[in-house]
Structure formats: structure tokens, C-alpha cells
């Protein structure tokens, strides 16, 4: 039976390092794979949905207040205002809270001698509560809304749990309501599992939200997309990418 201290050191040391390594390599792999499986659009490609080459694809054609309002009503924010606010809050806090947490930054300072800017503890505490609250909202939505239930699978619940766990355990550990040591181990462990799984599960939408909305042109893209999927293109293999001549084909990238 290994002692709690030994396990604590393992989770804090080698496991944390490998989690970060796997997270960054996995993310790099996904980005690389996207660039391999997509290609630059030729300038002449006709895109029927693009009204004007200088504006975003679906911008209102005539700029008047009435037009803008009717345009807004058709967007996701106009159709689902509550969901938009909650999901924006959730995702902002989800990323900002751990990044700007004083405790985390102190740890980084101890290990590498550098430190980021930190938010006051009161604010990160509220952010954590907000993440937990929004997760509960998503959970109830999944359980009680028939349309969401109709496409929900077990993995959706697991992913939600996986995302909320580091925040719940972190909150409990910070307020020391339960035994501190097991809780902090759980906190680190769940955070590490989340980081490891991020590039390979549904959580990869963190990456492809931006890729899909900014790099690929379609009706809902934010910017002027410049790339498109190779439909029926080659399979990605790291070997082929590294040794193939395509790597040096700068034009295509």
C-alpha cells in the first residue's frame, strides 16, 4: 500500500508534467492534422454565400438599425439569449479561473521562478462557483429538456463531470471543508485527467471552435476563411507528413 504522501508527490510531480506534455503534444497533433487534411482555397473559388469579400459572410447587407436588429434576432445569441450568456460565462470562467488563480501562480513561481498576473482570491472564488453553477444548469438541461435528451449519450454526462470535477474539488480544498490532503490529490488528479483527455475527446471543441469558425469559410464563419477540407483526401500519417514532399509545399499551407 503506497502512502498518501508518496501518491501526492507522484501526482504533483511526474504525472502533472506528463499531463501537460500530453496536452501540448495532442493539441499540436490536432492542429498539424487539420493543416494536412485541408488546403488553401484558390482565390478564384466561387463562394455563393459570400456577399462581399470585405465583410464577414453573413453580415447585414444594408446597414440600418432595423436591419441590425432583425439580423441579431436570427443569430444564436438572439434565438437563445439565456444559453448564450450562460455558456459564455461558463467558458470564460473555465479558462480564466485556473489560469489566474493565486495558488496556481504561486506554485509556478516556486517551480520555475516566473509568475503570471493573478486575480484576487475573492474573484476566482466567485468564478469557480459560477463554473459549478453553470455545469449544474447544463446537467439539468440534459436531464429535463426533451430535445437535449434525445441526442444525449453517456459520454456527455462523463465529459460534464470531467469538466466540473477539478472545480468542485478545488473549491472544497480551498475552503478546507473536508480533509485537505485527499481533496487536493483528487483535485490535481481530475485536472490532469482533463488535460490528458482534452485533445482526444469532445473537449477538443476548444480548438476546433476557432479553427472551424475562423479558418474555414461558411455562412457562420467570423472571419474570411482561407482553408477548406480536402474532401476524400489522404489519411493523416505523421510519417507521411514528415518524410513526404508535401511538408515543403509551402503554397499549400
Amino acid at each position, binding site marked *: 500500500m503506497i502512502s498518501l504522501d508518496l501518491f501526492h508527490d507522484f501526482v504533483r510531480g511526474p504525472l502533472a508534467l506528463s499531463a501537460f506534455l500530453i496536452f501540448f503534444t495532442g493539441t499540436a497533433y490536432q492542429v498539424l*492534422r487539420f493543416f494536412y*487534411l485541408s488546403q488553401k482555397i484558390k482565390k478564384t473559388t466561387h463562394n455563393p454565400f459570400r456577399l462581399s469579400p470585405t465583410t464577414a459572410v453573413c453580415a447585414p447587407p444594408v446597414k440600418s438599425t432595423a436591419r441590425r436588429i432583425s439580423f441579431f434576432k436570427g443569430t*444564436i445569441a438572439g*434565438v*437563445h439569449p439565456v*444559453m448564450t450568456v450562460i*455558456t459564455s460565462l461558463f467558458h470564460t470562467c473555465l479558462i480564466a479561473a485556473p489560469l489566474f488563480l493565486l495558488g496556481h501562480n504561486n506554485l509556478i513561481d516556486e517551480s520555475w521562478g516566473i509568475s503570471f498576473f493573478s486575480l484576487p482570491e475573492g474573484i476566482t472564488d466567485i468564478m469557480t462557483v459560477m463554473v459549478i453553477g453553470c455545469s449544474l444548469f447544463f446537467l439539468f438541461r440534459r436531464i429535463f*429538456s*426533451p*430535445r*437535449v435528451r*434525445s*441526442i*444525449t*449519450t453517456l459520454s*456527455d454526462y462523463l465529459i460534464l463531470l470531467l469538466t466540473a470535477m477539478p472545480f468542485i474539488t478545488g473549491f472544497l480544498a480551498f475552503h478546507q471543508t473536508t480533509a485537505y490532503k485527499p481533496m487536493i490529490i483528487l483535485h490535481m488528479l481530475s485536472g490532469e485527467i482533463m488535460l490528458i483527455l482534452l485533445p482526444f*475527446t*469532445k473537449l*477538443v*471543441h476548444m480548438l*476546433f*471552435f476557432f479553427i*472551424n*469558425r475562423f479558418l*474555414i469559410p*461558411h*455562412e*457562420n*464563419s467570423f472571419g474570411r476563411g482561407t482553408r477548406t*477540407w480536402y*474532401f*476524400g*483526401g489522404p*489519411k*493523416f500519417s505523421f510519417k507521411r507528413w514528415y518524410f513526404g514532399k508535401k511538408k515543403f509545399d509551402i503554397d499549400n499551407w
Partner: protein
Amino acid sequence: MKETTDTVDTGKIRTTLNKNKAQISLSLKLCVHCTLCAESCFLYMHREKDPVYMPSHKFINSLGRLYKKKGNIDRKGLEEIREVVWDRCVLCTRCYCPMGIDIPGMIALTRGICRDQGVLPQFDEE
């Protein structure tokens, strides 16, 4: 009416799926089952908001089903998919997804797979 055989060429389906594997698996993975796309489909809005008309429901139960079964499907299954991709979607391409998933593209691909197997919309029924 065109004669159709009762067998399904699963090998051919698998070839088509493999050719587009990266996009299909990524789209299925990216769909976080949020149902924000529902209101963008006029069929959903006009069929009493029945969840089976949600764009995500349609592509998960057509291409998603084919992909999960790796193309191993019988004729009855294909006919159910035909109902999804022809009767519940008109490919107007007006649906939006916050993740930028190309749902009409997925449904068009499924239609292609069905056509390959001789499973076509039947206008003389109903």
C-alpha cells in the same frame, strides 16, 4: 420503378466512409449535443418542434449511425436512414452550428451512400 436488390454492399459503404473518415469522425466528435442548431431548421420549427427534425439529430442518426457501425448495415437500416436524409431534410443548407459543423455536407454524403445502394426516395408511397 427501378429494381432493387435486397443485399447491401457494405464494402462500398466502408470505402466511402474511409475516404471521408477524418471529417466524419471530427464532426461527430465536435458535436457537443447542445441542440443550439434546432431553431435554424425550418422543418423543426414547423413540425411542432419535434426533436427528430433537429439538424444534429438527423446527422447523428444517419451518417453517425453508419459510421459507428462501420458500414455494416442491412437494408432495413438503410431505409430508415433514407427517411432521415430525404424526408426530414431538404438540404437547404440554412442550419447553423456554433461549432461550425457542416451538417448539410454530412447529410449530402449520406444521400450519396444511399444512392450507391439503390435506396432512393420513393415518391409513389405515403
